[in-house]
């Protein structure tokens, strides 16, 4: 790695290229090449739900070493992962080693960090992302001896934000709607019928519920989607692939 690497050029070249990358696979390859220039050999782009929710359904792009995600899932590490915990508390990028935890009181947290090392995830850097509608997400990356100069980290901050945006845009178009669902089945049903122009009374009849229950589900959905009106909730639900 040359010391003369122009971090801003690397970041801006990637950002310029992203719009032309039409599949998640292409973004993954291009991002992998870019991060390698900074010494990061693996990465993950994912939503960061509150435990006890599981991480796995929220993963957008998985560039972790073979076996790590499987081990992480099987061992149920997410709830104890100190890096994930810190990510949910800050909007500022950080090195993994800055994520605080007490090894005495949380031996599980220490285990996550130690086992990660065995998979080559020695030093990491994480860019938190407060996605639209309040979803927390992140781009996180790791390597054995990455570049941690301030200018490199500023470039990676930009890279993370834009790579995440491109992935969400592409997955929004491609996906089967299985990801990042926040509405319950009933809330989805009710909004889906609203989208068909049905009134609360009609929906109540169709679903065999009381009108009051239908309205209650609509109110819950509005809260979750940060929507003011039923129409806005329907639009947001459609746009995010919930219905």
């Amino acid at each position, binding site marked *: 790695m040359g010391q003369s690497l122009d971090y801003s050029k690397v970041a801006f070249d990637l950002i310029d290229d992203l719009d032309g990358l039409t599949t998640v696979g292409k973004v993954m390859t291009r991002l992998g090449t870019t991060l390698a220039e900074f010494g990061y050999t693996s990465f993950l782009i994912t939503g960061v739900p509150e435990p006890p929710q599981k991480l796995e359904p929220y993963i957008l792009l998985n560039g972790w070493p073979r076996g790590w995600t499987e081990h992480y899932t099987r061992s149920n590490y997410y709830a104890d992962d100190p890096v994930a915990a810190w990510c949910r508390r800050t909007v500022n990028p950080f090195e993994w080693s800055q994520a605080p935890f007490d090894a005495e009181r949380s031996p599980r947290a220490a285990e996550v960090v130690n086992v990660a090392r065995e998979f080559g995830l020695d030093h990491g850097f994480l860019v938190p992302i407060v996605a639209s509608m309040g979803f927390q997400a992140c781009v996180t990356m790791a390597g054995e001896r990455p570049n941690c100069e301030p200018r490199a980290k500023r470039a990676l901050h930009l890279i993370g934000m834009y790579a995440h945006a491109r992935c969400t845009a592409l997955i929004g178009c491609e996906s089967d709607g299985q990801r990042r669902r926040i509405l319950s089945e009933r809330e989805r049903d009710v909004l889906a019928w609203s989208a068909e122009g049905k009134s609360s009374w009609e929906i109540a009849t169709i679903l065999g519920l009381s009108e009051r229950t239908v309205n209650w589900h609509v109110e819950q959905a509005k809260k979750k989607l940060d929507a*003011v009106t039923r129409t806005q909730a329907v639009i947001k639900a459609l746009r995010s692939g919930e219905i």
Partner: protein
Amino acid sequence: MIHVVTSANRHFYESELLTHFRLRHEVYVAERNWKELERADGLERDQFDNQVATYILAIDKAEIVGGSRLIPTTHPHLLSEVFPHLASVRGLPRAADTYELTRMFVIKSRREGRMMGGQTRGMVICGVLEHCLDNGIGDLTALVEMFWLPLFHAMGWKLIPLGLPELISGEWSVAVKMPIDKTTLESTRAFHGITGRAVVANQLASVAGTAA
């Protein structure tokens, strides 16, 4: 509804503008703790609040609930005078059809959810876009906190960074250029569930009505 205040009509809006400076002081000094903006008179005004400034005011039943400010980039503005180094990679665009967007805010009681603003924020942003499209403004520049980028991406905006992010008043921020057109307005309206125009049709009649 959104009112657009320029040097041509600001004599009709003197009291609204004063209230808006006071609200800005509440948002930026009291709430966000930007000490350098603190003023003894409680009105947050800087050197760019001058005759060339255009104000986008969200007024709901005579109450100012949000706003924003546009400065022509051919005049001195925040990025040109205070943060030119933030545009060091791509250079600072300065052109007659390029305006700088600053001081976008929604009063506390009108914010919903974790992301600031909701419907009121949508009205302010749509007001900015309508005013720009009405007046042949094709590019906006702005200094934005990094945590805002996902929201603008989700609204369908294109944000072209001008330099690397930097810590400003404790927040990572980046200078961006944002090309805007009819599509940007359409996707922003759809995102917020706004169907009609945000800027009021007959501004003067409407402000006379609120004063009565």
